């Protein structure tokens, strides 16, 4: 077990290094176009670009630049943002925090609902409840986030006028402004998690050890809670950890739409404005979060599964 944890963490670090290399090659070298042109625009002159390159140390050997760059990263020196005209760190961390709040609210509502409904529909496969939840889940995962954002806005902002149309929090934190972004995320992801849970539960319910438990004469509640859930919830746990990875994608659209000052909108702005330093920093952070959650999911799955834990 210990070896597994060590191995996973080792792989995590390896992934981060490879990703940093890829990002470096893509954005900081001539591989996909001149960085100077990207930053200064197409209409800049050759001299301007040369000057810029000199200024920013682009004429040194690649390997040296990479090591320096990585070193800077590791020590927290993330460079300057062109778009926001300030240190990247000052811009990124508050935004990260905002997204964390949004994510927390989303998960706090979505996870209990989807787990419960998933378990209930898996228990009674084929029943009316199961079919309703399944179809509802399919419908909600068929509507892209921007589409549901549009429709919810039309309904709650323009028609009923219950909620504000943007969530820029310009007057300080207001919970009301979180509702629409969270709702879009919740509705979309609920379908996926509920169906994964349902599938896991349905599979467990048809297994032979559940038949054994029933034929031992155990009360139904004991069969479900003690025997079924313990095995059925292992897969959804991993799925939920991986939803954090999905969240980092989903928030981009939602934050952009509702002008919420979060991490996702930041990544988008960085890329649309060719703000290289910002884009790199955001990408590294995003990948770091994703890889960490994947590692936790892997380790957790191993821990929860006695077959692997005690082998």
């Amino acid at each position: 077990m210990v070896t597994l944890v060590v191995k996973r963490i080792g792989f995590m670090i390896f992934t981060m290094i490879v990703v940093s290399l890829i990002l470096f090659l893509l954005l900081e070298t001539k591989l996909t176009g001149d960085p100077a042109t990207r930053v200064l625009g197409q209409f800049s002159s050759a001299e301007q670009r040369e000057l810029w390159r000199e200024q920013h140390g682009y004429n040194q050997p690649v390997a040296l630049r990479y090591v320096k760059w990585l070193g800077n990263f590791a020590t927290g020196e993330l460079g300057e943002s062109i778009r926001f005209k300030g240190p990247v760190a000052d811009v990124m961390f508050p935004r990260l925090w905002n997204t964390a709040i949004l994510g927390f609210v989303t998960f706090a509502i979505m996870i209990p609902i989807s787990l419960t409904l998933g378990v209930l529909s898996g228990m009674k496969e084929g029943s009316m409840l199961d079919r309703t939840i399944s179809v509802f889940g399919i419908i909600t995962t068929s509507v892209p986030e921007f589409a549901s954002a549009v429709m919810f806005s039309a309904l709650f902002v323009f028609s009923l006028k219950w909620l504000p149309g943007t969530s820029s929090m310009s007057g300080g934190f207001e919970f009301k402004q979180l509702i629409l972004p969270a709702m879009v995320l919740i509705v979309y992801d609920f379908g996926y998690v509920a169906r994964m849970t349902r599938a896991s539960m349905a599979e467990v319910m048809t297994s032979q050890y559940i038949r054994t438990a029933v034929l031992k004469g155990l009360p139904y509640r004991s069969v479900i809670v003690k025997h079924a859930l313990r095995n059925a919830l292992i897969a959804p746990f991993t799925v939920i950890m991986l939803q954090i990875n999905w969240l980092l994608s989903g928030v981009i659209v939602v934050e952009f739409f509702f002008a919420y000052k979060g991490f996702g909108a930041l990544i988008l702005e960085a890329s649309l404005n060719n703000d290289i330093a910002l884009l790199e920093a955001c990408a590294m952070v995003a990948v770091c979060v994703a890889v960490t959650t994947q590692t936790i999911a892997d380790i957790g799955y191993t821990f929860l599964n006695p077959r692997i834990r005690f082998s």
Partner: protein
Amino acid sequence: MNKDQAPVLICKDLCISYYTRAGEIPAVVDFSLTVKPGETIGIVGESGCGKSTVAMAIMQYMGANGGIKSGSITFKGRDLTQLSERELRSIRGAEIAMIYQEPFASLNPSLKIKTQLMEVPLAHENISKDEARQRAAQMLSDVNLPDPERMMESYPHQLSGGQQQRVVIAMGLLSNPSLLLLDEPTTALDVTVEAGIVKLVADISKKFGTSQIYISHNLGLILETCDRVFVMYSGEVVEEGTIDSLFTWPKHPYTHGLFACIPLPTADKNAAPLKPIRGQLPLPFERPQGCYYHPRCDHFKPGLCDLERFKMVHVENSAADHRVRCLRYKEIDHHREVPGGEAKEAIELGKRVLKVNGMKKYYEVRDSSLRALFAGKRIRQVKANEELNFTAREGETVAIVGESGCGKSTFAKVLMGLETSTAGEVRHNGKEISEVAVRDRSAKQISSLQMVFQNPFDTLNPSHSIGGQISRVIKKFGVETDKKKIFDRVMSLLDTVKLPRDFYFRKPRQLSGGQKQRIGIARAFAGNPSMVIADEPVSALDVSVAAAVTELLMDIQREHKTTLLFISHDLSVVRYLSDRIVVMYLGHILERGTTEDIFAPPYHPYTEALLSAVPIADPEVTKREIVLEGNLPSAMKPPKGCPFCTRCHRRIGDICDNDLPPEQFVVDRHIIKCHISLEKLCLVLPVITVPDVSERLHVEQRE
């Protein structure tokens, strides 16, 4: 067994059907049964006869689409079909308990053994947790599990198959049920492990007074465990009786046919071959008029047997309660028939075709635990095959016998070129093949050494037609190149395996298990091989189907004089069709010789235990009982000395643990690898004693 007490279970005129989208499928038609206290009843039949459905019906757990159409099931005076869910729950586990076919799948992988055991009495009786714990530990030792305390704290995957099944049996017995249902409890287990479980089951009635219903397809197992037996065919009981009367004087043609399909010690592949039952089991909605068995019956009388359904009748002049469902049983004299089918000619053996000399195959396994890292032993070896030596001649059938983990599959893989050997040599037709992988072999070499696989359901690619698959083999081996000629050859192969020619266009999905296995045989023989390896070809098939496929294999072998390497764990079949036997255990050959040599003393102790474990469906054959204790060692940590030392009942001392035993020559080509001296081994009594024909009971009856 108390004959005067009230019966525990009465099934009366039971009709069970499944209701699917395709309509009603009658699974069980007219089933009646009575179980007295302390009695063990056997229900025997082939797949599709409805025996498992009956068990599920007794437990009232038939799933969403199964239902009892008519009839009643009375348990201790109460009609089970009328009880509420709550009342059923109080009966299940406490009064009626069930043991299943696959022990690992039946245990919850995430809960400890003690939790799963203690649940039973805690749910049904008003006892404290401590008392439940004590009873659980006590029961584990009652089912002969060593170290109950450690077992309680384990998870199911940490136990072996035999141990898991014992745990399931303990779980069933914990609340002292009156009735125990056992649904093929040993099918998934090795032979020697099976023997232990069978002995346990046989003792349960004596120890605990529980009545049992034992469901199986194996008549030999029924003989060893049961008092009375019911034979089912196509959803109904065709004969019932005590073990003695039914096994000695079977009255129904189907029962008689079943016995003729089993390779009993009296069968001989040339002089008295198996007699398969012709025809096929009818599908549930295609059952014939009148007697369901009449299309396949040799004693069919038109106008009598195909008119109306009829009930069971009591057999005259027989023991109490011997009943049969046959209108002509009085007129049929089974003893007038020749036992076994027509005699066939024995093959003359030719020159030597295969020579295995000191072959070794070791696998490397990386041990990634921290302990191994520190000890510097990261790469370990699994010694799958260790110093194999034997030969085979043209036309000979050599059987390789052993249980799981003995290395027989590895050996087959090396022969076929899927693996290469680590040391030693194997010569086929003079050419060395053990170090030559398949892709380096010539087409001629490949086509002359082919294999028939074990699992009929996986042996054919489900996505391609039958004809296409066989054609591909013919083309690949270069037997024929012209399209028309290939087609003709496929047709002739289909004829050889006795299948209709229009199967060419069918997909495997449309074939039964036996038919698929025949195609597997056709495919193996498509290139006229000089040697065929058959890896447990009939283990997964029903008794009558297996007999037909076995006979087919024998016929083809006779015609082409092919050498057959027959891998199996079933010593009855092995005794029937092999000329020579090689006994393997943990990668070593412990004994080899002709069939007569192996089945008579001197034995290697493992052979002795194997022979004792084989269920034989002949009540007049006596067997000595040998039960092995101890565990199969892990393949990565085999014992330093003799591989069998951890379980051997004749272990003589430390020499067995430390030194590899020498090969002792009893006669030329009969070798035993043991430390015990040959003189002592020759003094051992035979394990299986088959009475002479003149001493047999049924002959007496004829006079």
